[in-house]
């Protein structure tokens, strides 16, 4: 069974919320990304979302944009990300790895997704396609990789239904109108929409975008099956990349984990 499906099922059986951490592959470099991934899992992260850098990441706020730029300066490609995942799997064959990126990268490198050598990647999330479509609609298909769809606060009810049915792995509920790292969470709206999604989805619904503090995480985990943290981690990676001191991230993740338990 797919690692993502497996992990989410186990969490559900234990009545636990999922903690997903996002970082950009190759920021500040591939070696460090590998170390950071191990550390994140060590500190309590259940699922890792690997940002695939793109020149024009229109859904990202300034923090993650800069991380994409740094990774691109290091010539990180989807090919090198698959190689990185391969290395990661030598030490951890359990944690689900989700690729999050933009359509052009995936259709351009179609064969990498279709091959998915040694099954290292479990899921792909494409930011810039409508929710009811997935990579298969663009001629990229691998039955062992599931495709996560996004639903946002502006998604209308009739579409929530078809998107929720289409998503595999989990449904990604974008908690706000805006880019990653923004801070205009509306808990009422989130709770209503997630409730609506859960009526139709056979997979869990996780909430992401704009979750920063353990308090945010706690609040949102009460209305969803788990939370996704991105910009805060990426910012700490940026700040620690000179000294290679990332202990703050460990503390931060531990606190978040506690808050949602």
């Amino acid at each position, binding site marked *: 069974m797919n690692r993502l499906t497996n992990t989410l099922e186990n969490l559900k059986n234990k009545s636990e919320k999922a903690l997903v951490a996002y970082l950009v592959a190759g920021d500040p470099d591939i070696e460090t990304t590998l170390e950071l991934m191990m550390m994140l899992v060590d500190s309590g992260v259940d699922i890792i979302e690997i940002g695939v850098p793109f020149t024009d990441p229109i859904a990202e706020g300034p923090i993650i944009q800069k991380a994409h730029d740094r990774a*691109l300066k290091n010539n990180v490609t989807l090919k090198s990300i698959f190689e990185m995942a391969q290395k990661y799997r030598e030490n951890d064959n359990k944690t689900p790895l989700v690729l999050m990126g933009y359509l052009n990268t995936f259709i351009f490198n179609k064969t990498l997704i279709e091959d998915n050598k040694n099954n290292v990647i479990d899921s792909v999330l494409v930011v810039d396609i409508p929710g009811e479509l997935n990579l298969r609609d663009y001629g990229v298909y691998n039955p062992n990789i599931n495709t996560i769809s996004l639903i946002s606060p502006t998604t209308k009810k009739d579409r929530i239904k078809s998107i929720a049915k289409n998503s595999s792995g989990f449904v990604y509920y974008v908690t706000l109108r805006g880019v990653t790292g923004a801070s205009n969470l509306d808990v009422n709206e989130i709770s209503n929409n997630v409730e609506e999604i859960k009526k139709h989805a056979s997979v869990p619904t996780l909430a992401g975008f704009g979750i920063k503090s353990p308090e945010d995480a706690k609040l949102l985990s009460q209305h969803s099956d788990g939370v996704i943290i991105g910009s805060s981690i990426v910012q700490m990676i940026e700040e620690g990349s000179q000294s290679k001191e990332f202990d703050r991230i460990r503390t931060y993740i531990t606190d978040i984990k506690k808050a949602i338990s």
Partner: protein
Amino acid sequence: MKSDNINLPDKNGFFGEYGGKFVPETLMYALEELETTYEKLKNNNEFKKQFYKDLSEFVGRPSPLYFAERLTKHYGTGSIWLKREDLNHTGAHKINNTIGQILLAKYMGKKRIIAETGAGQHGVATATVAARLGLECHIYMGSEDVQRQSLNVYRIKLLGAQVHSVDSGSATLKDALNEALRDWVTNVDDTYYIIGSVTGPHPYPMIVRDFNSVVGEELISQSKELFNSMPDAIVACVGGGSNAMGAFYPFIKFNETRLIGVEAGGEGVETGEHAAPLNDGKPGVLHGALSYLMQDDSGQVKGTKSVSAGLDYPGVGPEHSWLKDSGRAEYVAVSDDAALKAFHDVSELEGIIPALETAHAFAYLDILMKEFDKNSNIIVNVSGRGDKDINTVANIDGIKI
């Protein structure tokens, strides 16, 4: 592919395989809302009346089709006619589209207007129509373009709009579009995004084309009146492709008229340093549409190079990709140097200082006019005037103003 098929895009926004709607989910609702509004209004008589009234009284349409006597003599082959979009209020074709889209915004009750701009002409045109309706207006512009089009930056400010200088990526038009899309995702409920070319997700390429088609429609009747036939060729520069599409679209069904788009060849297409995706790109997805795109061998969007800010864009409107593949239109490129030479030549020969973008279309006449005889009629779409480029050209020529 039949070239007489002009009922495109299809209902999903595709021109053949190009186009579509590749945006974050948050924008899907806004695009649907826009599409519904446009479908409702486009055949509404009140709406059409208002659109043409504004074009006539505020923009000064129709723009003349002018016989370029000395340019014609210079080449000594066919007659060269100039479609004078440079005479429009604000100085370029860009105003045609903004006049139409601001009416949509007003109808939809949007309070806040945003736009991206490269050369600043679309920024000026947007700020102009927003001022006219008293709407809050924000213009995104790459920081490199803020410098090289400083005159237009000041014009935008005079019109009461705010200019946001964008430093990310290559700090040009592509990055201004990224930033405008991010603004839209954030403020989607009360904001109308006026895209400035036939680019972006469906329904934008269709809407911008339709509003700009007033140019081609006028050309049909002006051609009949002035030389009593359809033109043998229409030449237009292509950045995103809105001035070209507006001139080409009504002519797609007239197979006797060659449609020729001129891209920015920068330092030369063969050097890779250019902005000519139709000449040297591969299909890819950028800013919501699948179209020819300049990309590297791992699928990243490549940086562009052009002396002209308005053509300095790695993508192109999806309908042009379709016209290229179907063979109905031809796409060529001319270098910075050729465009600069044409800029000077046309100024001196015709008393018209063209925009650097437009100068690309003129530069191609050097090659094109050899293919025609004395009885032919060639139209150049003069997309805009060159006042905004005076500083750039003076700099290149080593002159301090």
